[in-house]
């Protein structure tokens, strides 16, 4: 996924987003797999029992929040010395 330039050091690889991304994806897959064999409980709607629903919720939540932040950021970001 990541197309950032990477250097030889592990630190730079971590910064570039590759390592955490691989770890994140691995955790996501490993924790979503048991959903296929579980009877999951729901609070409100049947779709909460879908396999990997909470992973999707996390993905979607961050996507929505980042989108909102970009939108609001465009409106409210100012220079450091805005108030003089």
């Amino acid at each position, binding site marked *: 996924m990541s197309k950032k330039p990477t250097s030889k050091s592990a630190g730079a690889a971590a910064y570039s987003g590759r390592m955490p991304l691989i770890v*994140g994806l691995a955790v*996501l897959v490993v924790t979503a797999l048991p959903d296929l064999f579980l009877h999951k409980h729901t609070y409100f709607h049947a779709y909460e029992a879908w396999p990997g629903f909470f992973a999707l919720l996390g993905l979607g939540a*961050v996507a929505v929040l980042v989108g909102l932040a970009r939108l609001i950021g465009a409106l409210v970001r100012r220079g450091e010395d805005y108030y003089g």
Partner: protein
Amino acid sequence: MAEWLHPSLVFFAAALVLPLCPAVARRGVLLATPLLAFVLLWALSPQASLSYQLFGFELNLLRVDGLARAFGVVFTLNALAAFLFALTRGSLGQHCAALVYIGASLGAVLAGDLISLYLFWEVMAVASTFIILARRTPQSFQAGLRYILVHLFGGLCLLAGMLLHLAQGGGVEFALLASGGAAAWLILLGFLVNVAAFPFSAWLSDAYPQATATGAVFLTAYTTKTAVYALARGFAGWEVLIAVGAVMALFGVIYAVLENHVRRMLAFALISQNGIMVAGVGVGSALALNGAVAYAMVCILYMGLLWMSAGAVEEQTGRSRLSELGGLRHGMPWTFAFALVGALTIASVPGLGGFVSKPMILKGAAYGGHYWGWLALELAAAGVVLHAALRYLLEVFFGPPPAKPAADPPPTMLAGMGLLAAACIGLGLFPQALYALLPYEAEFAPYKFEQVLNQLQLLAGAAVAYLLARPWLRPAPGQSLDTDWVYRRGGQAFYRLAEGVFNNLNAWGERYFLRNLPEQLTRFFARPGVRIQRLVWLPLLQMRGKTGAELEREGEFLERRSRHGSYPVGGGVLLSVLFIALMSFLFFFF
């Protein structure tokens, strides 16, 4: 245990004694005070009370029920860690202000009536302002002034609500406020200012990052959590709080991800987490209230830990912006380790304090049927990766090593962080210790397979989304406009308006009353006779058709006559006769 020995009293006494101690003994006093207060609090029985008379009311300084005790315990224990952290770097003034501040917040939590609560509330506001001022920079001074003004506004709302409540015969005891009258709404407004509810949240992100690295650690723990306590006591089950909390939780995330200043980002994270607690209070079921209390207790610990690590980074590197930081995990391994514990706790990773407390609120909201509230809280729970959980760690501790190497802070600061990290881990592993302190009866078992799985999925999904979106979220210099724009820009505009109006009025007044008027009066009274004649006689002549040259001649004639005193006798006699006639008339007829 003697009931007159109120736990707050220990803090107040320590604040008085501290300046008199030699420097070596001060450290002992600072560490002994929270411990002694904790022991005193622990020894108090639930029936304890400490009554006094004020304004004709029977007031109570001690109410040690489950709710008050839970907050009191975490207040005193957190104070120990915070003083350990501040031991070597904090100034004497800051230590004294912190002692008074903690004592007052403990007093507010233990107060059984509204008047005592209000008194402690205001002491907290003043003492915390001095902690902000202790940085002694122009920025901290200005932020401190804005901070105290906002808190005085909140305090006045509380006072007005309280007086109205008393006038309506509501009673002085601080208990659940049932009616939705003006009194209750004003009190609620006062509490919401202190809990940093949007739109009254800007004071927090404005002022806290301006305090010193050690001072801010105190601030993050007490003001907002005292307000969470007050809401849980007075407004449990007020459903409007679910909306208020949801807005806070999401607002905090969005502003945190925009922020470049490390501790200001953590300030927005704090607002976001407070929102989750406020929503829990709004749900109002035993489970949700227990969750709010438990999460407030855990939040004090991990927020303190995160602010300590960020403060240590700022102290050791001299840099406070994400865009200028990175790669510190090699130079500051201990700080990194403690920050990691704090970050994983705020993310509610299973095995740490957050996981055994926050899900109680979410579950409470779900059981209560509050779909939108639940969804907002899940969004905020996933949004932690955008601030304290992942963004903070990646931007500050990962990446290429800094040009100027940095080292871990002194051992006492590490010890403070270590204490809080141990508490975060300990509560995660042994949640029963936490649950034993919770005030209400509610069943909750955190470590169910499905629950652990769901939480890990949520965090992994959120982390993956964040890492994919990260190229668009690089920290950039700048600041975000917040609601304080209203009073910061409004204040500047008001100043300019006032300056324009009053300075102009002043200048005009000076010109006329101090220069022109005295000048004219001097001219007039230098020769009053000729002036009066000129004022009366010349306009008359003008009306009779005399013009420029003739008038001037007449004026000169008047001047000459008055200079020489050469008035005709007849005129004087006529005036005398008229005067005597007038006097006789008055004498005979009145």
